[in-house]
């Protein structure tokens, strides 16, 4: 039993974190821009692609912390769809293109029927069909998050039918989204703490007031206990555990809830200026809300946990 990340897993996350931090605030407005190119150079989009297709052949548990960093950075674009779902949807030649970062993929959500960032994707998947972007009619749909634009996608032209099952891809995409939510929550907490240390009222930093302290402590507790559920879900999916679906839903519900709490608290701590476009905070607020709804919302996943735990003995 060693429920701790290896040095390699930690190093990968640190590399992604540093790379994204070095992009500066311009990253927030880019769609598939310099940060994507840098990640592609790093091999980020091939992390889960099998080695025989020029990927690194890693498992989700190896990369879950790196995915968390894409959430912390509020990286726009179909990151989860391209780096995590696509390797388990596509085959042969597309996998090689994925690994080099030459292929950007989006996925029509099974629930909403909307596809994130389809306008910058090369390939749109509406399971079991896949088509190039030019063969799909895209209609913009209002979204909550400027970094995750939503589209209706109509398959008018030629599409190919994908083999196999969408389940391995959807499970992994859901865990990856949960990991991003943990990253978003960590950024919101860190940023709120930093602000509470410097914003002064009544002659004191607002972070010295107990009401503010206790709100932020609650966020710290929520993040501390959501993250291990996400890491465990990654392991369960990798090993195709019998409990994988339950663990995935548990991870998504807990991470979504932690991030939404972190967003609510961050806004309250920042006060009026947080409620404006004067700060970048709004990007992380929007990311918390949009990712909490992606791949099934908190209530939907909690209901799945409820159905899964009734009458089933606990592990081990």
């Amino acid at each position, binding site marked *: *039993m060693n429920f701790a990340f290896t040095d390699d897993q930690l190093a990968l996350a640190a590399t992604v974190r540093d790379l994204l931090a070095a992009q500066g605030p311009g990253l927030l407005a880019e769609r598939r821009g310099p940060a994507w190119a840098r990640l592609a150079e790093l091999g980020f989009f091939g992390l889960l692609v099998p080695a025989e297709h020029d990927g690194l052949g890693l498992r989700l548990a190896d990369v879950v912390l790196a995915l968390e960093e894409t959430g912390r950075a509020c990286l726009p674009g179909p990151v989860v769809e391209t780096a995590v779902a696509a390797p388990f949807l596509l085959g042969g030649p597309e996998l090689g293109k994925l690994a080099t970062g030459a292929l950007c993929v989006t996925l029509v959500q099974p629930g909403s029927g909307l596809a994130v960032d389809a306008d910058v994707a090369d390939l749109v998947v509406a399971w079991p069909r896949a088509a190039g972007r030019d063969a799909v009619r895209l209609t913009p749909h209002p979204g909550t998050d400027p970094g995750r634009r939503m589209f209706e996608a109509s398959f008018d032209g030629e599409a190919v039918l994908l083999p196999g099952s969408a389940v391995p891809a959807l499970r992994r995409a859901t865990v990856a989204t949960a990991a991003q939510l943990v990253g978003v929550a960590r950024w919101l907490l860190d940023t709120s703490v930093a602000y509470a240390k410097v914003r002064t009222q009544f002659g004191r930093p607002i972070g010295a007031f107990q009401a503010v302290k206790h709100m932020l402590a609650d966020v710290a507790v929520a993040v501390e206990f959501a993250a291990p559920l996400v890491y465990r879900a990654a392991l369960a999916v990798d090993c195709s555990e019998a409990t994988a679906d339950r663990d995935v839903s548990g991870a998504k519900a807990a991470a979504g809830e932690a991030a939404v709490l972190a967003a609510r608290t961050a806004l309250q701590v920042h006060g009026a200026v947080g409620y404006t476009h004067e700060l970048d905070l709004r990007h992380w607020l929007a990311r918390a809300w949009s990712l909490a709804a992606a791949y099934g919302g908190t209530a939907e996943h909690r209901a799945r946990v409820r159905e899964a735990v009734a009458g089933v003995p606990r592990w081990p």
Partner: protein
Amino acid sequence: MDLDFTAAERDFRAEVRAWLAANVPRNLPSMNTPAGFQAHREWEARLADARLSVVSWPEEYGGRGASLVEWLIFEEEYWAAGAPGRVSQNGIFLLAPTLFAYGTEEQKAGFLPRMARAEDVWAQAWSEPEAGSDLAALTSRAVRTDGGWLLHGHKTWSSRAAHASHGFGLFRTSGEGRHRGLTYFLFPLRDVEVRPIAQLDGEPGFAELRFDGVFVPDSGVLGAPGEGWRIAMATTSSERGLTLRSPGRFLATADRLVELAAGADPALADRAARCWLDAEAYRLQTYAVARRIASGRDLGPAASLGKVFWSELDLRMHTLALELLGERAAATPWFDGFLFALAGPIYAGTNEIQRTIIAERVLGLPR
């Protein structure tokens, strides 16, 4: 990163599970009644005969040198089996880690084996009428005398003290200031005036202790005189952290809650599922913490995150059970559990104190 138990860990779990299935007594009376206290001590002796009362202690003191993960496995099995509450918990979980860290060989040999069999049952003597959350405001004092100290003062909310044999706590030995000049004493309760105090369930789970020149020899001082605050903080860190309330207790409660909520209104069943998930989260976080401790890192103020989480989870679980049971709740163990859970956010440092510790020492917010 993995969550795979070793063959030795699986064997240990199987041994514990089989022994408990054959030996767990049912329906012991409350440990806060004279008969129940005696029955719980006898249960501890049976556990000790199987070398299961203090698995993580070294063999020479009655344990089996188990790892932290094995101890967590023991706890999971213990509570899943519906085994009784631990009458000796203040000694074995709170005092013993401090004794191992600061005790003399004589103190360890004299106190630990008897504690492991509940031949001695220890009560803590921290709080005073005017020193609760603000423990450093305590005023009880110890005065130097030939070969030892004379204890004076008034302690209260001392769990198990109505029937216990020994106590441990802090007394002022000089007037140097709030956190200095405090000394950690170990003492028999026979010369202390003990007044039992009924808790919400009507049983005398608390007592107040009055010291009127109670003699304690030098061998009853834990660590050096004046070092009591630092040593006591080591105890409260283990209390808030792993040893007081391991995940096993909450996993067992959550499993029973899910059973109770089966077939209930989905809104209530969803709340049960959330509790189940939170218990699982506490378990996983604890496995991660166990790894940190095993690699030599201290739990430190992060223990406060766990204390807030498990105490509020426990209360949510029992509150939901009462909603599910309605007017019939009081006839079930859930009601006693509810009363017990209500104490969770209060003892071992209130959750308000814990949140302040998290904000200041984990997040770094200004005092």
